[in-house]
């Protein structure tokens, strides 16, 4: 049962061929088998899961059909789930219990999902490898010596390792798409504002967006359909209707113009990766797409823009962690000293670096030169996408510049890690929806490591995005019939 897709599990539970409790028992047994080697979760929510599974079975017995009935779910630990410890991967929230549930998570519960645990992440979602978690190590199921990507490392590892059929994730500059690529799963960042961020611990509020992680495009679409839609509890939530996507999937790309980005040429990524992306683009053409070249002339400024705007917003958002209302407190002689000591003890190095950069970019004398200039560059980047989408319906490009790397590979230069976000940041700045779908494997020593194809659509065109990704996935099936190497022998 745990090998099945979320869609298949929901059909079986709704059709009473299996109960949600049976699915949960099988799921928890799998978690017990593989979790010691994977480490996807910071905490288990087994009691809550059992109560929820019983409720789902009662609802189904009473004649209700739930779109995700009995589907095991991992919840990224920067999302509130009432009564569970919700840490954001940080010491400062290590023992904090959420007093309410995030809207996106609540909608999944209402749709019948069964939450099995809270998934690891880079602290406050700041990172591209999950190595910045203060509370746990998550390994890539395709090669345990490698990182799962980040920041949603626990979410993607859990889904790849069959510890959950679906996982929630959040993406600020690539935190859904890069780890999805690294772990060979589907990860999708909706249009900014599509999914409510109420109950998501804020990182950079003008960029943060919640999206689905799944093993198939159909599952990701079904999960998106449940989460998306206006929420009065989030003032940035879009008050526009959401088109269903899971019922609009396609088997071909006839009539779709796919843009390849001139500035995203893959020659510099090495021969093997270059060849892999060329094959991916050829497959899109073979499925009927008309392939055209487009330009994103300001893409090269993406990293610089992002690494001013995101830290600036983070420094402001994280001001709330001061030892007063929640989390850790370290006592000091006066209130100022208490703040400074609490934050020194509670935050890890990457969070401190971003608070410092952000505070600097917003400080008197530098505000215009850094922060406002970055906001203007952001305008140019959004205009780039508008112009590109005048010539194409979708953009195709890499989701990351390499496959998963080994722990510690990026050393202590933060810029080396930031470069992992090169292909994902422009879409975040422009707010457009984008996803990563597996597009093959590269060999590194004894390991075969998955890579991700990123597809990007204009604002609000999530249905188009899922439809194309589904056609590509069904025609290639890179990970549909193949499980990660580390699971062999324990499955």
């Amino acid at each position, binding site marked *: 049962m745990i090998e099945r897709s979320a869609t298949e599990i929901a059909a079986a539970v709704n059709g009473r061929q299996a109960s949600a409790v049976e699915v949960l028992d099988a799921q928890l047994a799998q978690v017990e088998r593989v979790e010691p080697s994977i480490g996807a979760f910071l905490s288990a929510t087994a009691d809550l899961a059992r109560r929820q599974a019983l409720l789902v079975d009662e609802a189904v017995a009473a004649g209700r059909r739930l779109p995700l009935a009995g589907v095991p779910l991992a919840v990224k630990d920067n999302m509130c789930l009432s009564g569970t410890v919700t840490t954001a991967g940080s010491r400062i929230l290590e023992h904090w219990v959420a007093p309410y549930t995030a809207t996106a998570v609540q909608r999944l519960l209402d749709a019948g999902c069964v939450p099995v645990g809270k998934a690891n992440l880079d602290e406050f979602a700041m990172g591209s490898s999950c190595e910045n978690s203060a509370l746990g190590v998550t390994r890539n199921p395709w090669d345990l010596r490698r990182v799962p990507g980040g920041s949603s490392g626990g979410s993607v590892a859990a889904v790849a390792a069959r510890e959950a059929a679906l996982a929630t994730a959040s993406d600020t500059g690539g935190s859904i798409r890069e780890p999805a690529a690294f772990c060979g799963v589907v990860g999708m960042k909706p249009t900014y504002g599509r999914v409510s961020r109420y109950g998501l611990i804020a990182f950079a509020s003008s960029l943060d967006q919640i999206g689905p992680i799944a093993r198939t495009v159909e599952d990701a679409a079904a999960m998106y359909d449940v989460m998306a839609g206006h929420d009065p509890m989030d003032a940035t939530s879009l008050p526009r209707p959401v088109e269903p996507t899971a019922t609009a999937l396609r088997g071909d790309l006839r009539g779709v113009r796919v843009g390849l980005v001139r500035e995203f040429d893959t020659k510099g990524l090495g021969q093997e990766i270059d060849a892999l992306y060329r094959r991916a683009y050829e497959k899109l053409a073979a499925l009927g797409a008309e392939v055209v070249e487009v330009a994103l002339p300001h893409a090269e400024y993406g990293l610089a823009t992002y690494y001013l705007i995101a830290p600036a917003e983070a420094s402001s958002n994280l001001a709330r962690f001061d030892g007063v209302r929640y989390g850790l407190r370290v006592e000091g002689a006066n209130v100022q000293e208490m703040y400074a000591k609490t934050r020194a003890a509670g935050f890890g190095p990457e969070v401190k*670096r971003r608070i410092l950069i952000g505070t600097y970019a917003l400080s008197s004398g530098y505000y215009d030169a850094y922060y406002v200039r970055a906001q*203007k560059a952001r305008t140019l980047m959004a205009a780039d996408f508008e112009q590109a989408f005048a010539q194409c319906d979708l953009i195709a490009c890499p989701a990351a510049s390499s496959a998963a790397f080994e722990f510690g590979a990026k050393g202590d230069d933060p810029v080396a890690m930031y470069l992992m976000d090169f292909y994902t940041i422009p879409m975040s700045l422009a707010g457009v929806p984008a996803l990563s779908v597996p597009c093959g494997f590269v060999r590194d020593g004894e390991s075969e490591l998955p890579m991700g194809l990123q597809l990007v659509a204009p604002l609000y065109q999530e249905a188009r995005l899922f439809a194309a990704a589904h056609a590509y996935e069904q025609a290639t099936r890179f990970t549909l019939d193949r499980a990660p190497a580390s699971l062999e022998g324990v499955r």
Partner: protein
Amino acid sequence: MSSDSSPAAGGGIDVTYVARLARLELSPEEAALYQRQLDNVLEHVALLQNLDVSGVAPTAQVVPLTNVLREDEYRPSLDRSQALAGAPSREGAYFAVPQIMEEQA
């Protein structure tokens, strides 16, 4: 180079000064490490200085929403005990903090 009232002269980040603004205590080792690392980051973001942004309006966020308001009416929220439950220190119905104001002589 650093003072409580002004940023470092001549550009560049003065980590010790900025850490004070951010209410973040740093050990001397941390300050030295972050100084080096953040100099690298700022060297990278300096790329933006090459970009001509004259006449470009800044983008704060990409969603066409302004002044999102709701009806001014009562609706349920967390009760006081729930709101206080995660606090490291509380006194009765309040969050408790160390003394903020100095006593008058």
